[in-house]
């Protein structure tokens, strides 16, 4: 558990300062040991700095409003020199203490190797996740097993992005021409939201993703499912949708394993129906949102690289049904 260390008493004083900082993407709503360590660091810094700030402001108020005796002599000057010197010394000690605290946190956060490796590639404006050992890729949804360290290798296909899941860990940039890495570990099962944290162009705002931490059994089941090719079309409507997809420009950019669609510019859609959201966290995956996104991507996400592919209303419904079926 994260609470292993307990929250130090002074940290409790800071709690009123951090009201309601919870939420689906909050660095204070902790889901793993790294984020727990960082929350402790944030709270400790806030408390210490807050006390220092209150002291400075109180002294300023006192200096302005104090009752003044007649005349100030050499004695006052000497006292002031002492007071200022001691305050500077105290500043130096506090700063040294905070630096040490920071170093200790860096050490205990470590990094190092993970038990599992996943490759994350930042793209304008979506996330490509590759599971090299199982040999498949997915988009905008990362699954990790609870309690195990996952090393994420971070790359970029175009500009600089930054990989950030506040509830699990701090952020790390994805820089073209370089490889960086980050380790993730979730202590409890859950759905954690992440978002790009480095300005990357028009749709930087809509570049979210989900991390799903689940128990080992569900994780293995998910891996097996994702490694399979797309399931064959079961109904007439789905078959029609697949035909439309393969005949239209869709297949030029997207891959659906098990079909002739092998484009690589956009996300792999082999199991898009199993993902919680589409368009990098923009919309929940339903037949309706799939149809809406296909029908008018530029209104939903202005500037997205997904073009508008003209379809009749029947074709649009068929494609949406087909995509939804790709569990």
């Amino acid at each position, binding site marked *: 558990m994260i609470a292993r260390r307990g929250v130090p008493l002074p940290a409790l004083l800071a709690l009123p300062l951090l*009201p*309601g*900082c919870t*939420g*689906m*993407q*909050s*660095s*204070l709503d902790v889901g793993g040991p790294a984020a727990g360590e*960082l929350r402790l*660091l*944030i709270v400790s810094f806030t408390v210490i*700095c807050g006390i220092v*700030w209150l002291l*400075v*402001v109180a002294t*300023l108020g*006192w*200096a*302005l409003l104090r009752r*003044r005796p007649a005349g100030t002599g050499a004695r*006052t*000057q000497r006292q*002031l020199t002492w*007071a*200022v010197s001691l*305050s500077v010394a105290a*500043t130096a000690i506090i*700063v040294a203490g*905070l*630096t040490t*605290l*920071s170093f200790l946190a*860096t050490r205990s956060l470590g990094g190092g190797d993970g038990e599992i490796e996943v490759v994350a590639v930042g793209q*304008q404006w979506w996330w490509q996740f590759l599971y090299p050992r199982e040999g498949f890729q997915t988009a905008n949804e990362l699954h990790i097993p609870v309690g195990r360290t996952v090393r994420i290798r971070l790359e970029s296909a*175009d*500009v*600089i992005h*930054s990989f950030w899941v506040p509830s699990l*860990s*701090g*952020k790390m*940039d994805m*820089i*073209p*021409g*370089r490889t960086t*890495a980050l380790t993730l570990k979730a202590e409890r099962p859950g759905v954690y939201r992440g*978002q790009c*944290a*480095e*300005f*990357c*162009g*028009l749709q*930087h*705002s809509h570049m*979210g993703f989900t991390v799903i931490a689940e128990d080992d059994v569900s994780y293995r089941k998910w891996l097996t499912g994702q490694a399979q090719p797309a399931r064959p079309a079961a109904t007439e409507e789905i078959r029609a949708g697949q035909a439309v997809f393969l005949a239209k420009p869709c297949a030029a950019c997207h891959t659906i394993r098990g079909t002739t669609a092998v484009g690589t510019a956009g996300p792999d859609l082999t199991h898009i129906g199993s993902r919680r959201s589409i368009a990098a*966290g923009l919309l929940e995956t339903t037949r309706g949102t799939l149809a809406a996104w296909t029908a008018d991507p530029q209104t939903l996400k*202005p500037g997205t690289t997904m073009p508008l592919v003209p379809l009749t209303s029947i074709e649009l419904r068929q494609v949406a049904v087909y995509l939804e079926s790709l569990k």
Partner: protein
Amino acid sequence: MTGNRNARTREDDRPSDTDVSDAEGERRLLATWATPRTLKGVLSTVDHKIIGRRYIATAFVFLILGGLLALAMRLQLAAPEARFIGPDRYNQIFTMHGSTMMFLFAVPVMEAVGVFLVPLMIGTRNIAFPRLNAFSYWIFLSGGILLWVSFALDVGPDVGWFAYVPLAGPEFSPGKRADIWAQMITFTELAALAVAVELVATILKQRAPGMSLDRIPVFVWAMLVTSFLIIMAMPAIMIASSTLILDRLVGTQFYNPAEGGDALLWQHLFWFFGHPEVYIIFLPAVGMVSTIIPTFAGRPIFGYLPLVMALIATGILSFGLWVHHMFTTGLPRLGESFFTASSMSIAIPAGVQIFCWIATLWAGRPQLKTPLLFVCGFIFTFVLGGMTGVMVASVPLDTQVHDTYFVVAHFHYVLIGGALFPLIAAVYYWLPKVSGRMMSERLGRIVFALIFLGFHGTFFPMHFLGLMGMPRRVYTYQPEMGWGGLNLFVSLSALVLAAGFLLFFIDAIRSARSGPLAGPNPWNAPTLEWATSSPPPAYNFRRIPVVTSANPLWDNGETLPVAGGLNIDRRELLVSSVVEALPEARESSPTDSIWPFWAAMATSILLITSIFTPWAVVWGSIPVAITLIGWFWPKGEPEDEA
């Protein structure tokens, strides 16, 4: 009184100010130094006060424009998934906001206050290299117009004020937007470097006799350190923006990783400039604070020497911090830890200054006039910003808050709280010197209340938004993120802040037209700029003052000793020694000239057309050369024969 003996280095048969009556002397000094009220006079003046005023007014216009952009952003962010502004326009707006505030407002306005005040505070008649000063203003104005005309034409830069590659490179930002940003940098840095060189020369060589290094007003020290920072930091960004332009226009590959370039090289160069930049803005502000506090505390500043040492230490340390903007780029841990320590250590000189100010107030009898109110608001706000600065200096902590609204809150606390509050204090304090008229004390209190409350209402909640995961530079956010309520509160508070600024500008303009007359020294302040009339005459001082203490107007009472012997029919200055300010020589000061204006126009045309064709550098240099020849043509001064 003195001076005559030392300063007269050459026989000169023309009259000096000791040979004629006071009235006659003033008349002839005015004839020598005044700027004619004609269009040619306006374009050719080299008077540091006129150029300083112009520079400040222009910078404040950019502040208003940048502030309106901020309001536009707050409108868009007031509600989730709002559609007032689309992503393309929004990216232009936040890029313009940052670039305008940093390059067209904060740095220029601080330098401009220096241009106006430094010669007055050190008791000389004009700034060194006054024609370069005129050139600097026109270049600055051209750069600002270039940026804003582009924005109006919907080709404003949209890659952030930091223009990270490869997003700002040729592949991901086709068109001219990023080129305009990079060339605007060239303009503003050229202007800033010119002023920095002038200020260094002025401060080191033109101080009034007797103003030894330990008697220089703290604001002047701050401008000296700032000028050195500019001279050392700005070349990095000029190299960065020039190589970016080369990548974009000529096909070099400095920043293209596919061809052996490096995306992080840009960040190193940018922040090697970018962090000192913060102190280039902040140090003049603390200089203002150190000047205003003694006046309203009614006693000399406590700890002059530690304050000056703190300024210098901050200046030196500021070059060792840049990597703390890059803690999430995966640099080696050991190197990052060094930058944590260096970033935190800057809290020590900052602490020295804050404690010295509080000690001055404690020992004095503070009068809470508007300038001091803003100074107190500054301490309250800046210390809080400093605390969050300590937080972002920690590598692990920074990985959570970097590029979130927490950082937006942090740097607005240190930039608005740390620099703009002192600047407003400075306007209330020195506008009477500039215009000769007082601002309203009653309105000043309302302005302070609105700005102070509006500021904290706007920026304090952003700390929470950042911790709640809201990244910077997003044009919108989804309703389920739960950031809507705080954002709405922030946007409403921004209106209060804007109302405060509106009232401030109304008061400033009203007072400059019809405020009560100020007289030479309305605050009973100790420094030399208050020894001359308000507004000062074109020649600044009837006779050059002689300084015998750090607070000349307090220690000498009504009768300031003066030095005579300068020519009154020709522009002449007193040059003094660097350390002790012993008079060394009389030096001609350049007369008005239209050539700096034409040189600036020729340079602007060269720089702007070079965005469209590299050949502009070749052909454009011809008019630049012609104007420079006109500028430097021998003027028939005594120095020419020497």
